[in-house]
């Protein structure tokens, strides 16, 4: 298969000149001044740049550790484009849209996660139990933010994960796996996706008589999640791992904070 440039503004004569094997990298290397007109419109947040540099280091090590063995040859971190926040005592509702413009047709989705960074200033170790409710939101034409608090029916089983904070680590990254939910949207090659995300975190404490549950301070300090897509680019210019190399997909482990944040469905937890 040839590299499909439907998303690229490659000058036709250049790609013909190099027989259409031009990856974005070769295009930049081979043209005299290709980067002259390249000025990123939006500069990503340095926190996410640091996060992706760690992913880069782990993924590109020649002697990959078994944990980092993976099959993806592409990963894309997409920060939210639009955001509407609604909050009351019960909910922290976010209406977020992500642009999937850069995802190419040959990039097959392996895993997609919502990447949260929780900042805290606790002195004592603290564990919060967070519940995440995600559903696709049809963009309303006339206004960017349409009010949803009244419509709170769930679209996917509630995802839950724990966030353990301690004094040493001020920022905790959590990847929440939403692959099964996002897969159909990404496979449909949508250019934009609009999600309605409701995240509620409570202090993960043993319920006391009276069942009072305390709202966790963690929820208040998190920012809108970015979308991290792990993809397998099937085009010729991308590195193809041979099956014989015996590397299996192990994208379930969260290899950033040494602990695997595997999501648990509420029903299994009850069981």
């Amino acid at each position: 298969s040839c590299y499909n440039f439907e998303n690229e503004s490659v000058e036709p004569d250049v790609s013909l000149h190099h027989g259409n094997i031009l990856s974005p990298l070769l295009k930049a290397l081979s043209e005299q001044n290709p980067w002259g007109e390249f000025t990123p419109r939006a500069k990503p947040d340095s926190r996410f740049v640091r996060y992706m540099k760690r992913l880069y280091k782990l993924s590109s090590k020649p002697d990959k550790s078994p944990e980092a063995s993976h099959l993806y040859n592409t990963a894309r971190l997409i920060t939210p484009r639009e955001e509407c926040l609604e909050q009351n005592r019960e909910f922290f509702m976010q209406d977020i849209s992500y642009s999937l413009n850069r995802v190419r047709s040959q990039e097959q989705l392996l895993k997609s996660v919502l990447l949260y960074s929780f900042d805290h200033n606790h002195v004592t170790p603290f564990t919060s139990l967070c519940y995440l409710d995600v559903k696709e939101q049809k963009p309303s034409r006339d206004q960017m933010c349409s009010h949803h608090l009244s419509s709170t029916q769930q679209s996917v089983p509630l995802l839950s994960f724990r966030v353990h904070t301690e004094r040493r680590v001020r920022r905790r990254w959590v990847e929440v796996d939403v692959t099964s939910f996002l897969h159909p949207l990404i496979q449909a090659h949508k250019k934009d996706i609009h999600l309605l995300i409701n995240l509620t975190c409570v202090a993960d404490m043993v319920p006391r008589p009276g069942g009072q549950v305390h709202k966790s301070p963690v929820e208040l300090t998190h920012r809108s999640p970015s979308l991290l897509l792990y993809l397998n680019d099937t085009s010729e210019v991308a590195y193809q791992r041979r099956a014989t190399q015996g590397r299996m997909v192990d994208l379930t482990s969260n290899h950033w904070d040494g602990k695997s944040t595997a999501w648990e469905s509420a029903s299994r937890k009850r069981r």
Partner: protein
Amino acid sequence: GTPKSTNLPETMPKLIPMYDFPTDECDLYDFRVSFSQLKLDHWIIAPQKYNPRYCKGFCPRAVGYIYGSPVHTMVQNIIYEKLDSSVPRPSCVPSEYNPLSVLTIENDGSIAYKEYEEMIATKCTCR
């Protein structure tokens, strides 16, 4: 540009003495370039350097075993020497490659990790 004299296939029995002096036979050379030199560092944020390496040198007559060359390489050598010197000698070219992983900032502000095929030569052969 000093040749890496260790460019011998693993299958080579250890009996054969290592080259202890640089020769101009086919070998792998470093070619280090930085993306800032290429004015690409605002797009590629990792790695900072890129060493694609390249192969250079002449192919000795007995090229079979040392370079893992196909048999045809010897045939071409015989054609050059015995039959028609307008047919070129076998050339020293890369035979194996490694991918290159890069981290880029796309123009919509997203961050992409990508692995590109065959961007670093790791072995040379004559053919």
